């Protein structure tokens, strides 16, 4: 039924395109809603600076599409699915918002994508880690842009196993994201000939990790992997360095670390940690140039999510320009048909399940001697090709794929 409706609307949209491009942009306005955690745990990795990145994209695009103006509304989701869903419902049902972007907490992203599917608008998820967003929770109305748990495990775990880390102990944050990451890591480690000799699920959040680090030490595993995020990860790394975990010959692998986390830890505590990232500000001239502008605006270097918000907004606007429409299906189709080549990625492709697959990078945190300034934090060890990084479509549980 909804599928039919969508086909119809997209048919109508293409028909209107033929008659005149302007007519298909509703209300002569492209309205984008930026929804993210602006005040809580995830504030620094997306938050207010993500909005800045989006505004930069719109300004760079010229502030209008085919003569229609571009408007931005924004809100704090307070990491709450119901705050998010009442905001987005109002945005799409009353305020004609065409695109919802940002989207960090997985509960928020899943709730919002349901509403977008119901109302046939588009969403671009940049902040969430859960790979389920384009797997069992996939919809024809959203795109998952920057990263997910699958390449995080793939990149870091396979690299560490290949370097000789055969036995693993996983410290898992005891909630859906942690479990997903733990599952992905287990699969990758075992596939590469390693072995999981212990897992430990800690409450989220945990202020003191000493007890868990001690257990990890006692396990005698080659590798201690952290399947958690944010303050939990930084606390665990700090405690590991305090208790001399790496001195006693164990390797610490953090599966999800953002630039702001590493900056908070400092290179002294974090040096040598390997991690997977979708983007780094200091990779080449293009990324540096954009990051310099971002830093002028915000006073901080961008995380991969900030860069992803910029890039995805740009792709969206280009698709609206090319099709002359702001209809969700028309634009999404156009975005899928156009490989992404910008400062964020080369040859990034949006698949039918909504996953944007692109090259990921295995990075290592620099030593104090290598780091030239407070933001000089990573060296890129290896590029993980897109097709190797993300969950292959053959393993997908997304109903959009098999059709």
């Amino acid at each position, binding site marked *: 039924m909804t599928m039919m409706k969508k086909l119809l609307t997209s048919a109508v949209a293409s028909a209107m395109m033929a008659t005149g491009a302007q007519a298909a942009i509703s209300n002569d306005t492209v309205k984008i809603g930026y929804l993210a955690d602006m*005040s809580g745990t995830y504030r620094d990795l997306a938050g207010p600076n993500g909005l800045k990145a989006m505004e930069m994209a719109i300004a760079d695009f010229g502030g209008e599409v085919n003569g229609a103006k571009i408007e931005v509304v924004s809100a704090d989701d307070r990491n709450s699915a119901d705050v998010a869903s009442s905001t987005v419902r109002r945005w799409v049902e009353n305020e004609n918002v065409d695109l919802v972007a940002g989207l960090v907490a997985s509960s928020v992203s899943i709730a919002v994508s349901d509403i977008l599917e119901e109302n046939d608008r588009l969403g671009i998820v940049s902040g969430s880690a859960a790979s389920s967003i384009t797997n069992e929770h996939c919809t024809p109305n959203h795109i998952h842009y920057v990263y997910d748990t699958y390449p995080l495990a793939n990149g870091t775990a396979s690299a560490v196993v290949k370097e000789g880390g055969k036995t693993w102990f996983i410290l898992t944050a005891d909630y859906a994201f942690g479990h997903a990451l733990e599952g992905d890591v287990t699969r990758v480690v075992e596939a590469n000939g390693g072995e999981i000799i212990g897992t430990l699920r800690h409450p989220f959040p945990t202020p003191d990790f*000493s*007890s*868990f680090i001690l257990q990890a030490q*006692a396990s005698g595993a080659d590798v201690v992997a952290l399947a958690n995020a944010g303050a939990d990860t930084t606390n665990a790394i*700090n*405690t590991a360095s305090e208790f*001399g975990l790496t001195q006693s010959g164990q390797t610490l692998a953090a599966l999800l670390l953002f630039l702001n986390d590493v900056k908070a830890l400092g290179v002294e505590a974090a040096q040598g940690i390997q991690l997977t990232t979708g983007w780094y500000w200091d990779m080449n001239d293009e990324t540096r140039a954009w990051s310099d502008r971002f830093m002028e605006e915000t006073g901080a270097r961008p995380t991969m999510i900030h860069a992803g918000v910029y890039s995805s907004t740009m792709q969206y606007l280009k698709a609206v320009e090319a099709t002359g429409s702001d209809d969700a299906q028309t634009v999404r189709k156009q975005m899928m048909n156009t490989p992404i080549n910008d400062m964020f990625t080369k040859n990034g492709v949006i698949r039918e399940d909504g996953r944007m697959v692109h090259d990921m990078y295995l990075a290592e945190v620099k030593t104090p001697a290598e780091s030239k300034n407070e933001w000089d934090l990573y060296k890129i060890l290896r590029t993980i090709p897109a097709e190797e990084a993300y969950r292959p479509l053959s393993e997908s549980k997304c109903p959009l794929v098999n059709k």
Partner: protein
Amino acid sequence: MSMIFGVPLAVLSGQLLIGVINGAFYALLSLGLAVIFGLLKIINFAHGAMYMLGAMVTVIMFDVMGVNYWVALFMAPLLVGAVGVLIEYFLLRRIAGQDHIYSLLLTFGIALLMQGVLTNIYGVSGMRYSMPDLFKGGINLGFMFLPYYRAWVIGIALVVCFGTWFMIEKTKLGAYLRAGTEDAQLMQGFGINVPLLISLTYGFGVALAAFAGVLAAPIYSVTPVMGSHILITVFAVVVIGGMGSIGGAIITGILMGVVEGLTKTFYPPASSAVIFLVMVVVLMFRPAGLFGKEA
């Protein structure tokens, strides 16, 4: 190697020691709460925020003025204590004599306000604070590696806890304090400035929280929200100990550190909930907590 419930004895001893260290930390935090409740009947929901403020002030003083750890150990509690005195004087005093619940709500509001403002200024990723050189490294105890800093934490926390208990329960100043809060008019008659005494007591209570904050700065990530996670746990400790019982708060703090440590060994996911389970059970059998006097 001998095993207890499938856990090697060596690991268990390590966990117990860690439990005691965390317990000493809890004791320090709950002590301040107990002082404030026991003497002033204020339910201080801003206690976590004061702990956070202590840690933040330590980091900020170092970043801006290069103030080192040892100076911060005195300065931060002093500054936060002064903030506490101001809060008592300008805000809490106005609701003295009202239902306890109002002090809870007022201090909860203060906590939200401080946390929110600092989040907007400093973000939530955490601020870096280096371990003082003296404490780098640690000692191998055979069953575990004990960082010097953790040994220092347990030592200094116990000294401060005991000192506070001694001052309040055993000295003349403490006697004035207890009398002043029980019968303000009488003490006023003796020429003692009771309102000042009350301000200072509140200031002292939150200074203890700030002191714990300084101790936390080198080992935990310092963020504006660090206090909100620990607040409820510390409250549970105080309630289990018997609200207002100074000695009870200290002993229960250490006890709960150990209970939590054991849970972290045998069933880690429950380690954040176990204290509440203990609390329900304890209050069932001892309505005023382990060491509290029945009202």
